[in-house]
C-alpha cells in the first residue's frame, strides 16, 4: 500500500520537477549561447544590455544576431520535437520522425529546385517553396494512405517511399548542377546562419499549432491504445490522425522553411522525453519541446563557438550527435523485438 502510494506521488510530482529543471537548463544555456561566438560577450555586458542599463559595444551583435538566433533555436527546436513526438504517437512507431514520413524531404526537394533552377528568384521564395513542398508531401501521404484507413504501418511505409522519391529528385539536381552543391547541401543540412528577426516572425505562428497539439494530448493517449480500443472509446481514428498529422506538418513546414531541413531533433528529443517522463502526451509534449529547444540551441552554440570565425551548421552538429544515438536506438529496438 505504501509503495503504491509513493509511486503515484512520484508520478505526479516528477513531470513538474522535470519541467522546472529543463526550463532552468534552457535559461542557463540561453545565457551561455548569447555570449558564445566569434565575438565573446561577457555575461555582465549581456545583462547590462538586456536590462537597458547601458549599451555595450556588442549591442548590435546581441540584438541583430544572437537574440533572434536564440529565439529561432528555441521555437524551431521545440516545434520539431513536438511534431516528432506526435508523429511517433500517430504512427505508434518510436522511429518515426519528420524525416521518415517524407515531409522534410519534400520541403528539401522544393528548396533545391528553387536554389538550382531559379537562382535569380527573390529571397523569400526559398522559405515559401520549402513550406509548400512539405505541405505537398503531406498531402500526397494522406492521399495514398486514405484507402487503407490511414493505418500507422501504411502511413510509415508510404512516407518512406515518398521520402525515397524526393531524395532521388534532390540527388538528381545535385548531380546535374554540381556547382550549386555547396549551397544546396548547406540548406539541406539546416543552419541558423544569416537567420534573423524575419525568421522569428516566420516561426511564431507555429506556436498556436503546438498548443493545439498539446490540448489534444488526451486523444493522442487514446490513439496509442490501438485503433480498436480507441474506436471503442468513441474516437474517429482516421479523422483524428488527419487532424494531428496536419497540425504537425504545419509546424514542421514552418520550421524547415525558416532554418532548412535540420534532422534528428524530431526523432531524438521525443525519445529522451519518453524516457524521462513516460508516454502520457500531456507531459511528453512539453518535455519534448524543452529538450528539442535545448538540443537545437546547444547545437547552434557549439557550431558557432567551436572554430570561430567559421560556423558549423547546426544541422551538422545535430547529425553528429544524433546519428550515433539513432544507431543505439535501432539496436535497442532490435533487442526488444
Amino acid at each position: 500500500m505504501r509503495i503504491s502510494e509513493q509511486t503515484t506521488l512520484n508520478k505526479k510530482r516528477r513531470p513538474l520537477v522535470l519541467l522546472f529543471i529543463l526550463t532552468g537548463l534552457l535559461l542557463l544555456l540561453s545565457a551561455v549561447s548569447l555570449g558564445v561566438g566569434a565575438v565573446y560577450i561577457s555575461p555582465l555586458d549581456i545583462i547590462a544590455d538586456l536590462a537597458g542599463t547601458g549599451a555595450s559595444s556588442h549591442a548590435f551583435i546581441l540584438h541583430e544576431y544572437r537574440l533572434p538566433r536564440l529565439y529561432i533555436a528555441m521555437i524551431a527546436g521545440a516545434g520539431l520535437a513536438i511534431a516528432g513526438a506526435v508523429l511517433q504517437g500517430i504512427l505508434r512507431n518510436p522511429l518515426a520522425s519528420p524525416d521518415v514520413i517524407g515531409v522534410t524531404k519534400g520541403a528539401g526537394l522544393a528548396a533545391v529546385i528553387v536554389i538550382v533552377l531559379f537562382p535569380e528568384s527573390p529571397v523569400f521564395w526559398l522559405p515559401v517553396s520549402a513550406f509548400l513542398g512539405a505541405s505537398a508531401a503531406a498531402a500526397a501521404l494522406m492521399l495514398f494512405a486514405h484507402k487503407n484507413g490511414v493505418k500507422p504501418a501504411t502511413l510509415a511505409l508510404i512516407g518512406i517511399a515518398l521520402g525515397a522519391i524526393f531524395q532521388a529528385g534532390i540527388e538528381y539536381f545535385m548531380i546535374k548542377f554540381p556547382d550549386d552543391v555547396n549551397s544546396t547541401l548547406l540548406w539541406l543540412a539546416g543552419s541558423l546562419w544569416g537567420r534573423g528577426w524575419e525568421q522569428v516572425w516566420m516561426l511564431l505562428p507555429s506556436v498556436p499549432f503546438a498548443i493545439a497539439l498539446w490540448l489534444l494530448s488526451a486523444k493522442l493517449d487514446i490513439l496509442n491504445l490501438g485503433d480498436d480500443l480507441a474506436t471503442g472509446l468513441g474516437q474517429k481514428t482516421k479523422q483524428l490522425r488527419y487532424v494531428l498529422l496536419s497540425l504537425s506538418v504545419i509546424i514542421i513546414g514552418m520550421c524547415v522553411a525558416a532554418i532548412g531541413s535540420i534532422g534528428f531533433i524530431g526523432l531524438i528529443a521525443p525519445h529522451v522525453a519518453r524516457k524521462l517522463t513516460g508516454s502520457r502526451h500531456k507531459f511528453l509534449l512539453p518535455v519534448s519541446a524543452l529538450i528539442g529547444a535545448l538540443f537545437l540551441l546547444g547545437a547552434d552554440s557549439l557550431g558557432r563557438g567551436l572554430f570561430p570565425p567559421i560556423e558549423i551548421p547546426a544541422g551538422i552538429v545535430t547529425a553528429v550527435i544524433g546519428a550515433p544515438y539513432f544507431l543505439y536506438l535501432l539496436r535497442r529496438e532490435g533487442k526488444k523485438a
Partner: protein
Amino acid sequence: MLKWMKTGSVKGTGLLLAIAVLLALAGCSSTQKAADSENTQGAGQTEGGNTKTITHEMGETEIEGTPKKIVALELSFVDSLNTLGIDAAGIADDEKKEMIAKLVGKETDYTSVGTREQPNLEVISSLQPDLIIADAERHKNVYEDLQKIAPTIVLKSRESTYQENLDAFSTIAQAVGKEEEAKTRLAEHEKTIEETKAKLKADPNATILPAVVRDTSFQAHTSSSYDGELLEHLGFKNAIQQEEPYAEMNLEQLVEIDPDILLLANNDGKLITDEWKNNPLWKNLKAVKNGQVYDVDRDLWTRFRGVASAEAIGADMLKMLGENK
C-alpha cells in the same frame, strides 16, 4: 481525477506564461533594435559629405565619403582592391591565409571573416566597416543583414564571366573613389592581354580545354566560363563552344572532343584522371600524345578571378607553352 486536472492546468498556465515572456522579450528587443540601427546610421555619416550612389546587382547603395575599412566576401574583390592599392580590412578567406598571400602577392594584415559560403556576420559587424562587397550568388540571402552593418554592394564574382569581372572592378573603383586609376589600369590590362596574345601566337585551328578535376568528376570549362573566355581573349579557341559555362564529362566524351591542349586544375587528393591515365583512350588523346597536358593552379585559374589574376593566368600560359615566334 480532480487533482490530476489541477496539475495539468498549473502546467498549462506555466507554458502560456513562458510564451508570454518570450513574446515580451522579443518585442522589447525589437524596439532596442530600431534604436540601434539609428545609432549606426548616425555613426556612418563621415565628414566628407559627398555622397555617391552605386548601382549594383541588388539595387542601389549610397556611399558617403571614401570608404577606408572594406570587407571583401569573394576573392576577386580582394584582387580588385589590391590592384587599386587598397588592403581589405576583412576577407572571407575560408581560413586560408596562404591563399590570400598568394592572391595579393604579400602577407597582409586582415581579419578573416570566415568562409565565403557563410561569412561570419558577427565578425563583419565587429570590424565596423565602411563598405562591404558581396557576391551576387552566395550572399543574396544576407544582403539585408549586411546592409544593416555597412553600405553593401553586390557584384558578380562566383558566376561571373571575364567581362563581368572587369565591370565589377570598375564598380568597385567607383565605390572607393578611384575611377581614374581604374581606367588607366584597365587600359594597361588590355594592353598586357594583347601583348601576351601576340607572344603566345596560338594556332587558330587548335583547340584548348581547361577543366577542374576532382576525385569523382571531370568538369570542362567552356567558352562561356571565366577562364574559357579569358583564353579566347588570349587567342585560344575553346574546344566546347556553348552558353553553359561548365560541362561535366566522362572520358569518352573527352575523346570525342579531343582538344589539342588540356589544362587541368587539379583538386587535392585522389583524382578521376589517375584512373583515366591507364586507359588506352586517354593515351590516344591528341594532347596526351603531343605532350600538351598542363597542370595549372586551381586557386589562380578558377577561384581568384580579377584584373591582376587574369594577367597572372596569361603569364602562366606563356611559361607553360613558351613564346611562339
